[in-house]
């Protein structure tokens, strides 16, 4: 295949081309799920469990049914009659225990916020009016909230059938860690506590289900990252022929993994439409979002690192304990954060001896799922904190310590002691570039001068890696029915314009803009000549959707393949018309040109017109194929993911009297492989960083000992706002993956992965002269003050 780019014009790939999709969005003319109104549509609200753990003794809906505007009320049993439960098991991990989960609670409730009863009414307000008239008798059970407590022999079992609250345990060992620790001159140790966080997409989870009982077909509009996954689920669990199930994801107001999962309330809404034969809308309000959207993190980690006198990391050990709520997320599992933690902590560094253990336990809190970065922010924070402690132990500059211990550039491809495979990283180059960008040496001097004036500023550096675009070698053996291929259909319209149907979905990342750039580049047309259609399982080729920073890498490659095939088909027709060989032609500026000198031969529009309307002018045996579909699946003989990398730095000031942190500057040098659109990538990185800063400084789901979430409103769960966030300087290194023709790796999670770690390092760097150290995230004023107080005792 001809991999050469047309040489007579500038490449569109790699240019900061504005996203055409934004034109409607900035005019308020987007279409999000809640914007859609269907005739005869019912509004659905849920009665949710006020208790974290209880038996449901009785549900009385008689009075509620008599309230104005109420159309139907369904309990768990009603929904279960037509909907099978799902389970977060994984075939390749027979020891992973998980209980079946029903759309609505059946005999017991297992977290505060679990949906129990569905009320359908003409208006949302009327449905809410009826909530007070549903009477549920509970028999309260002791709640499991603390991860350590969950494992105690006396702990109540959340699912007695499983016989334990331990979901899974995983061990990794490489080399001889015990021996290495015993021999080491310096061993540094630390405990870490990571708080619970949640995604807080600005558009809440939303779904409209429209079941046509005549045709037995189901159309679902859903604010989701993977329409195909949901199509499969509705077909499987509601027993509807999959060819009659269509899931449409309109504009999606933020997702971050929150909208990747299967939610009982959303499935109950769909089942309600099947039961009633009417369209049903469910839009989570903000208060229920906090107790029903997937949460993340909530880990306790112990780590130690052995280091030689000359500052070489000898051995590393991580012991992770995480609590994931009462169920494993079906098809995605809830063990991944723990696995990521032990496979990715300190992975950019060369050491031979390693032991990692993760234990995942169930508890009576909202479910933990795949939120931006999954376990990687934890891995990064633990690894980078340990590296800082090790550097301090041998009195080395933390930046130089990193450089010395990074995997060397000549070691690739490289498999780490933790078990990750790196095709090619750019650790050294990123660090060198960062050092220059942030003016590291001068900044250290400034920090020293400020310290002398009693002002405590910290410089943090965090190296991160990001596994992207997980392939079938990862998901296949799980039997989880997760599609990892992506597809693209391109249609050349009679006027020479192109419609692109991609399996990638769009939640604002700009993936579809990048895909348009790829298609434009290959077909020699402008991005405005292409309209991208996405988020519709009924029309676009099958695929996985957008998650795990995979959109550009996977769907981009499919688009590249499709565009090359369409180009070839166009040139074949043009060649016939021009009486030339296709190899002599190329596409440029919407024209057919001679490849050797760029001379224009005919308009693309003319070829398109003839191909569509005047086939009589073509040779008898030529079939113009102006619609092509191509898929991309990562090869089975390469690792099941790509690995992007980067490094972040933060400069901040700690007010040691109040514990308030002021962010002064932030830098990132990121290598996400081939960059399709630098402007989009920059703000992806920045947005990820700000989300990570939110996790580092502000965001925490506070729970009490009874498993009640105490700050489940936007007034009390603090998200980052503009005032406190710094300007963020982003630069890039480009190391394309050789596993694809496109070379993109992925960028969605990069910023978030590094941000908690870089904040942690910077804060402890600021506190180090005072002998204080924070061990618990988020770093609230109280956490900082407590850390300082301990030094006085």
């Amino acid at each position, binding site marked *: 295949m001809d991999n050469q780019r047309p040489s007579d014009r500038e490449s569109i790939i790699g240019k900061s081309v504005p996203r055409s999709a934004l034109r409607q*969005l*900035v005019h*308020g003319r987007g279409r*999000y799920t809640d914007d859609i109104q269907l005739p005869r549509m019912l509004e659905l609200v849920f009665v949710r469990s006020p208790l974290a753990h209880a038996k449901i003794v009785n549900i009385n809906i008689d009075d509620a049914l008599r309230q104005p505007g109420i159309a139907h009320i369904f309990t768990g049993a009603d929904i279960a009659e037509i909907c099978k439960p799902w389970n977060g098991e994984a075939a390749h991990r027979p020891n992973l225990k998980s209980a079946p989960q029903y759309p609505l609670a059946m005999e017991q409730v297992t977290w505060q916020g679990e949906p129990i009863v569905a009320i359908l009414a003409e208006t949302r307000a009327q449905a809410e009016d009826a909530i007070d008239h549903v009477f549920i008798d509970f028999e309260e059970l002791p709640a499991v909230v603390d991860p350590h407590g969950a494992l105690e022999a006396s702990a109540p079992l959340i699912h007695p059938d499983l016989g334990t609250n331990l979901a899974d345990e995983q061990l990794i060992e490489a080399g001889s860690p015990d021996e290495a620790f015993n021999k080491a001159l310096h061993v540094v140790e630390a405990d870490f506590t990571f708080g619970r966080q949640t995604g807080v997409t600005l558009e809440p989870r939303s779904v409209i289900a429209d079941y046509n009982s005549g045709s037995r077909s189901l159309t679902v509009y859903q604010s989701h990252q993977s329409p195909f996954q949901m199509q499969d689920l509705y077909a499987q669990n509601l027993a509807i022929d999959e060819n009659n199930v269509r899931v449409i994801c309109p504009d999606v107001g933020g997702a971050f993994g929150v909208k990747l999962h299967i939610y009982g309330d959303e499935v109950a809404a769909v089942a309600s439409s099947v039961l009633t034969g009417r369209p049903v809308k469910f839009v989570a309000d903000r208060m229920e979002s906090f107790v029903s959207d997937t949460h993340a993190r909530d880990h306790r980690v112990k780590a130690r690192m052995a280091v030689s006198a000359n500052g070489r990391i000898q051995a590393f050990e991580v012991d992770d304990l995480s609590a994931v709520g009462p169920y494993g997320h079906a098809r995605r599992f809830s063990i991944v954060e723990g696995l990521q933690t032990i496979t990715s902590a300190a992975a950019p560094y060369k050491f031979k001896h390693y032991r990692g253990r993760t234990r995942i336990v169930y508890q009576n809190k909202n479910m933990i799922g795949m939120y931006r970065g999954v376990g990687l922010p934890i891995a990064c924070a633990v690894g980078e904190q340990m590296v800082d402690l090790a550097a301090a132990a041998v009195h080395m500059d933390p930046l130089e310590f990193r450089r010395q211990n990074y995997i060397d550039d000549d070691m690739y491809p490289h498999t780490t002691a933790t078990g990750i495979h790196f095709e090619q990283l750019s650790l050294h180059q990123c660090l060198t570039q960062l050092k220059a960008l942030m003016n590291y040496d001068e900044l250290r001097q400034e920090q020293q001068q400020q310290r002398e004036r009693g002002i405590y500023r910290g410089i943090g550096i965090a190296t991160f890696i990001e596994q992207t675009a997980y392939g079938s070698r990862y998901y296949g053996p799980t039997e989880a029915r997760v599609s990892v291929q992506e597809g693209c259909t391109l249609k050349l319209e009679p006027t020479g314009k192109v419609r692109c149907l991609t399996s990638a979905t769009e939640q604002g990342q700009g993936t579809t803009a990048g895909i348009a750039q790829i298609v434009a580049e290959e077909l020699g047309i402008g991005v405005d000549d292409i309209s991208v259609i996405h988020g519709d399982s009924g029309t676009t080729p099958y695929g996985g959707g957008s998650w795990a920073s995979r959109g550009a890498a996977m769907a981009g490659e499919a688009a590249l393949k499709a565009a090359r095939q369409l180009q070839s088909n166009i040139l074949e027709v043009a060649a016939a018309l021009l009486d030339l060989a296709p190899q002599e032609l190329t596409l440029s500026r919407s024209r057919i040109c001679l490849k050797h000198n760029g001379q224009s031969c005919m308009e693309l529009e003319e070829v398109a017109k003839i191909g569509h309307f005047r086939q009589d002018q073509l040779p008898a045996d030529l079939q113009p194929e102006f619609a092509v579909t191509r898929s991309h699946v990562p090869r089975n003989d390469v690792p099941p993911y790509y690995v992007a990398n980067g490094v972040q730095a933060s400069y901040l000031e700690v007010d040691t009297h109040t514990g308030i942190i002021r962010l002064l500057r932030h830098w990132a040098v990121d290598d996400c492989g081939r960059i399709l659109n630098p402007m989009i990538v920059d703000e992806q990185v920045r947005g990820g960083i700000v989300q990570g800063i939110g996790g580092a400084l502000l965001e925490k789901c506070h729970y009490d000992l009874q498993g009640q979430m105490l700050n489940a*409103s936007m007034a009390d769960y603090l998200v980052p706002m503009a005032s406190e966030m710094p300007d963020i300087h982003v630069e890039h290194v480009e190391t394309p993956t050789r596993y694809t023709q496109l070379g993109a790796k992925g960028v969605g999670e990069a910023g978030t992965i590094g941000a908690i770690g870089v904040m942690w390092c910077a804060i402890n760097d600021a506190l180090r002269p005072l002998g204080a150290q924070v061990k618990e995230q988020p770093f609230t004023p109280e956490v900082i003050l407590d850390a300082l107080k301990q030094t006085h005792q």
Partner: protein
Amino acid sequence: MQNTREIAFTLNGEEVSHRVPVRQHLADFLRHELGLTGTHIGCEQGVCGACTIRVNGRSARSCLMLAVQADGCVVETIEGISQSGEIADLQHEFIQRNAAQCAFCTPGMLMTAADLIGGKEPVSRDAIRDHISGNYCRCTGYHAIVDAIESTLNKRLASDKSNPHHG
């Protein structure tokens, strides 16, 4: 039982009259009764800013006003100030700088930012950040939004200078 009232107000330059349930907030009324879905609902608590509109020339949270309170008011939404061209340059900068990702916050952000770009003086980045600090954006790092507002204002100020009779 459903209390309703007849209201009449000016919406995006047009006179509108409508019967509204008194318990309905203005955001729901605009979205679901009038089909102006550019005004988004993110929290219904007045915290996120997605539902920001303009009432009598000042920005306001439409989730914290009853529809019935719009009676007699001049209300402008993202659809109105887009159609009038009032913020065309700001919208252009948002697109050029990718200052919107999922864009659910964007209409509210633009309504809030519109206050800043009509001034006669430059505004610092910190002051821009303060001004939009009641509008939550989960996707961007706010950096591009600040860039877009700053750039729009600077361009307007420069054009005012070169065209002194203009304003």
